[in-house]
């Protein structure tokens, strides 16, 4: 029997000496250039962290390459960020420039700090999940090829956080991101009654439906879907493989904006619907990348310094957002789920 329940490796064995020494005693930081953080300890010690972009879906080969670099410049220590970037931890200032040169030579993108577009939190999609309405890795790659210039610089009004989820389960940060891309279905599940009867627990399937669109079909020991009430979330399919919902022709992508996670200045915010649907056009999803680029550019042109996307929109109003972006406002933008009345405008205050 193997060892079990010993927990994660002890972080104390994984941190470089400069961190062990200055742990909890850092004094301040600066960002001397995009992708480079300079942390200064109360002791006067200095740590440079050099951040590079990662595809997140990576090979052991690449990890080993990273290790080689870390051995050379960082005493054999490396870390990843909560957004899947890689950080090289440089305690010897003399190693900083050589490292940067080396990374450049390898074509790595150094950036993601400060007022940049950092890496995209994303999910499995067609790589590994059973419920996707789109792919995630491909969307990220296509988008970031367009936007990498904002990763390697810090010229946004504030940080911009992108996220991609391949279905409305939103594994990741989509519900609170500056810009989120979410795969959606648009047609109702196709019920294989035999399959349901054989393998699915009917009450759980019924309970899984957010809008109560599923009723039992006792005759077939199966279920029926009320077309009027189904909004294609796919949650029933998660519970029951015999309710397939993926539809290559009608699945696609929706775009959400203005969310944030931090409590800095304003409370965390939900991302809200900007574009209800764009087609799945792999491998490069040109409609999606164009739309995201456009959103980023309208934001950059209009927001004030230090203003996150959602903070900008709150200042100018959603009515101005739709005007400035040229995105049509439709009935789909108006909430019709449980808390909808709290999103309706209860004042005559608005811009015409």
């Amino acid at each position, binding site marked *: 029997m193997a060892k079990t329940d010993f927990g994660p490796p002890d972080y104390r064995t994984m941190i470089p000496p400069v961190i062990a020494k200055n742990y909890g005693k850092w004094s301040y930081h600066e960002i001397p250039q995009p992708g480079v953080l300079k942390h200064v300890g109360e002791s006067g010690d200095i740590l440079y962290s050099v951040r590079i972009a990662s*595809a997140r879906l990576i090979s052991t080969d690449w990890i080993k390459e990273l290790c080689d670099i870390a051995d050379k410049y960082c005493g054999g220590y490396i870390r990843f960020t909560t957004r899947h970037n890689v950080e090289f931890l440089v305690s010897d200032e003399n190693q900083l420039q050589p490292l940067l040169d080396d990374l450049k030579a390898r074509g790595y993108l150094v950036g993601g700090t400060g007022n940049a577009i950092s890496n995209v939190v994303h999910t499995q999609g067609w790589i590994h999940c059973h419920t996707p309405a789109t792919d995630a890795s*491909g969307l990220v790659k296509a988008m970031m090829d367009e936007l990498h210039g904002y990763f390697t610089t810090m010229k946004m009004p504030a940080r911009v956080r992108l996220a991609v989820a391949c279905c409305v389960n939103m594994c990741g940060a989509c519900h609170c991101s500056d810009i989120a891309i979410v795969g959606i279905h648009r047609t109702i599940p196709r019920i294989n009654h035999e399959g349901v009867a054989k393998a699915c627990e009917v009450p759980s399937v019924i309970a899984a439906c957010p809008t109560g669109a599923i009723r039992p079909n006792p005759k077939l020991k199966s279920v029926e879907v009320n077309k009027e009430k189904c909004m294609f979330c796919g949650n029933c399919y998660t519970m029951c493989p015999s309710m397939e919902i993926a539809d290559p022709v009608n699945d696609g992508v929706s775009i959400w904006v203005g969310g944030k996670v931090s409590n800095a200045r304003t409370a965390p915010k939900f991302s809200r619907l900007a574009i209800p649907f764009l087609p799945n056009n792999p491998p490069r999803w040109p409609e999606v990348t164009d739309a995201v680029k456009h959103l980023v550019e309208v934001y950059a042109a209009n927001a004030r310094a230090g203003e996150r996307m959602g903070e900008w929109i709150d200042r100018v109003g959603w009515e101005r957002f739709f005007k400035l972006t040229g995105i049509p406002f439709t009935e789909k933008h108006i909430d019709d789920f449980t808390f909808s009345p709290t999103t309706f405008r209860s004042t005559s205050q608005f811009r015409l």
Partner: protein
Amino acid sequence: MTDSKTPRLDELEKGAWPSFVTEIKKAAAKKANSQDLLDQLELSYKDKIGYWKHGGIVGVKGYGGGVIGRYSAKADQFPNVKEFHTLRVNMVPGFFYTTEALRGLCETWDKFGSGLTNMHGSTGDLVLLGTTTENLQPCFDELAEKGWDLGGSGGGLRTPSGCVGMARCEFACIDSMDFIQEVTRHFQDAIHRPAWPYKFKIKCSGCANDCAAATARSDFAVIGTWCDTLKIDQNAVREYVKGGFNIDALVVGKCPTKALEYDSAKQELKFDAENCVRCMNCIDMMPKAIKTGKDRGAAILIGGKAPVVKSAFIGWVLVPFMKVDAPYAEIFDLITRITEYFDEHAKSRERIGELIYRVGMGNFLKGVGLTPQPQMVSAPRANPYIFWQDEEVVKHG
């Protein structure tokens, strides 16, 4: 080029951003399953649909979680991904690694798996992407030998995760890495043998910047803060202003409660401590001049989650302030009370936020032994539908 079997995916090797296709190809050069993954993915790109089936229950001995079973729907065409399960390996808290540790991991994964990983999954795990049912146990055995345990999946505690905190951040009010490590260890059984109605996530950020996205993405969010007042070094403030920093636009004007005012005559940043809601912005903007308070702890927010079923929630304040110091007895006790309540009262696939919504916050607080506090709400109720208990009214008639 024209005879590539993956013309669509090849397109995704172009461009400046690091390519996951290149990564798959690297693995495919060594591993047949990665080659089949690549080819099946190409087919998905052509057909615009995923080709994975629902996972069956697979795992390693003694554990109920940590593995996501996955089977190809096109196993006839791509036999090497017929089974293609992922292992969720518990990352190092804070995502720090020695190259030695990583190399050891790669070695094992090259031996038993696809040679592909996610560094990291969005919960935080080190995701080993794709192996067979047969290889799960030996792979885990070897991982365990090297000190790698599994993370969470299913209806139990998910791998806790947190920000870099005290390891490299002057803002950290609590030791997020250490807390995450200890909470993972303390509640391991709930991670490894999931027995709750649904998933439960714990995340921790050292301050209100919430670099771990804890409030939005975890059922139980621990957010470092302080209960005394922040510290201003007026000389350092002056330095910023002298350097051309627009203190009015970036600091004073953005304070959510207007607790700051810059007196340009006196060159002094005036601070109304009572109204500071510890949002971090002034500290973020002037890290050399303003520091967090010294009496530190955390706010606990409950119920954060994605949209399924009842809507996405951003965590709700549950404990406005508590100390979070090793050995963490008080907060572990709180987590125990909450997860026990969750285990007992939640329906299948009901997150704690949804449970609280269903039973009512008041009942939940009673259930877990907490006192109502105005910090819990952005505003009190507006509807007059107030419950009264038998003991609050007079029996008569």
